[in-house]
């Protein structure tokens, strides 16, 4: 039911997007109309408050679908938002982006379902993209798009590894998993590549794109935004330490076994690893040669591997690792409950069901009532005509 609602909303978003690209020239829109477009595209781009469908859909959909969804579908919304940027919208985007980055990562920290965790990270990473787009500078736009592409790749990789875990062990709940690294070493290695990339480890795509995002923010002298994003990075590192530790490294409860036919070296597993390896290769490649990304940078290249950028990327990673080691006990996966808008969704379900029920009651099957409807309708028209 929630999935249906989520999909329906997704479709509303895409339909409006279609409508808009079909009828109006796409470009900066007047501020007045913006309030039609931001919610419409924001649903797709999972802006805070409109993001409720994302964790639900991700945790229910099969892993390849999740990978595609986070790789492309949400990007459509961001792309639309990017095309609509104008100076007035910039500040709104910046604020939203920063909030999304922190909020997503905070929620992610509390999840125990691997895919929900990843889904909240999608929100957080989109925060980066949107704040980069919000700068309104060409560099910012390029940074946003680069991060969107990079995110599509490494998040796809991460979703696929979560899917592999689920296929292999029949569960993706961090409370029950553990010790998977020993059973599925290749999967673990690929997961690690994705996790490092999302944390912004130098040499992987996330590093390059995050560096660009930060550079674009510094360009417009918005230091607070940079710090917000750095903080979000720390959170990212912590939560991926959590995912990696509890799913792969921690000594399992002992009862953890691969399902029959799914173990290490099985055909299915190696096929899955092959798919993930492609995404991982692209991630590494983008990270090593970010200057090759065509058309993203203006005339001059950007010094990706300058000392300062590397340090600024490594700082949150170190901080995150440190914090994780300190807070490991507190992060033990458990049922946390944090108020979020998706709780509202559950409440709207019964309410939504009331509408067709009420309408259904009107179709009572009573012939005389039907005729009364006709007469009432005619009289209403007449009353208006006489007015």
């Amino acid at each position, binding site marked *: 039911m929630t999935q249906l609602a989520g999909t329906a909303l997704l479709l509303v978003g895409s339909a409006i997007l279609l409508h808009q690209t079909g009828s109006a020239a796409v470009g900066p829109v007047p501020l007045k109309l913006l309030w039609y477009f931001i919610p419409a595209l924001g649903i797709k781009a999972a802006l805070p408050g409109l993001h409720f469908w994302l964790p639900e859909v991700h945790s229910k959909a099969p892993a390849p679908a999740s990978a595609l969804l986070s790789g492309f579908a949400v990007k459509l919304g961001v792309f639309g938002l990017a095309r609509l940027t104008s100076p007035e919208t910039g500040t709104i985007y910046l604020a939203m982006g920063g909030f999304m980055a922190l909020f997503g990562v905070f929620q992610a920290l509390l999840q125990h379902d691997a895919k929900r965790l990843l889904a909240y990270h999608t929100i957080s990473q989109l925060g980066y993209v949107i704040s980069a787009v919000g700068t309104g500078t060409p560099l910012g736009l390029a940074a946003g798009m680069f991060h969107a592409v990079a995110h599509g790749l490494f998040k796809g990789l991460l979703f696929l590894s979560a899917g592999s875990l689920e296929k292999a062990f029949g569960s993706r709940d961090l409370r029950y998993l553990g010790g998977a690294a020993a059973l599925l070493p290749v999967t673990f290695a690929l997961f690690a590549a994705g996790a490092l990339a999302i944390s912004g480890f130098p040499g992987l795509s996330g590093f390059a794109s995050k560096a660009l995002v930060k550079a674009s923010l510094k360009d417009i002298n918005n230091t607070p935004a940079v710090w917000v994003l750095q903080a979000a990075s720390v959170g990212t590192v912590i939560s991926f330490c959590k995912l990696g530790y509890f799913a792969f490294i921690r000594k399992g409860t002992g009862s953890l076994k691969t399902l029959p036919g799914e173990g290490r070296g099985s055909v299915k597993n190696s096929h899955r690893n092959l798919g993930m390896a492609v995404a991982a290769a692209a991630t590494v490649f983008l990270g090593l040669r970010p200057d090759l990304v065509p058309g993203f940078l203006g005339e001059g290249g950007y010094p990706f591997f300058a000392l300062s950028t590397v340090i600024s990327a490594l700082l949150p990673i170190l901080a995150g690792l440190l914090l994780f080691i300190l807070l490991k006990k507190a992060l033990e996966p458990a049922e946390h409950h944090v108020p979020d808008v998706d709780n509202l969704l559950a409440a709207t379900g019964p309410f939504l069901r009331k509408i067709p029920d009420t309408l*259904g009651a009107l*179709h*009572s*099957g*009573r*012939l*005389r009532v039907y*005729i*009364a409807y006709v*007469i009432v309708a005619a009289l209403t028209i007449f009353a208006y005509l006489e007015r």
Partner: protein
Amino acid sequence: MTGNMPFLVVGILFFLGLYSILFERNLIKIAIGITLLEASANLLLIVLGYRNGGSIPVFTLAGEVETMVLPTPQALTLTAIVIGLATSALLLSLIMMLYKHYGTLDVREIRRLRG
């Protein structure tokens, strides 16, 4: 002198028909209500074509009588009566079948199709 009397009758017939369709429970009475509606419509057409003191509109009478009632409404009414007959016949046969299937003529109980 007829004046507006016929129109009053048309109105009364119309609302009587509507009343019995809306408030009667018996299917046959609903059918009667529909027939009343038809009658009111037909009467309206006839009355509209009436000219005071007019005679029947027959071609051979042309020139012999001063005024004729209008022929078109009479043709219309005849057609409408025929249609009304077909409707009533079908309506009554459907009512018969309904009675066979549902065992009742109460319109309130014929509501298997709903929702």
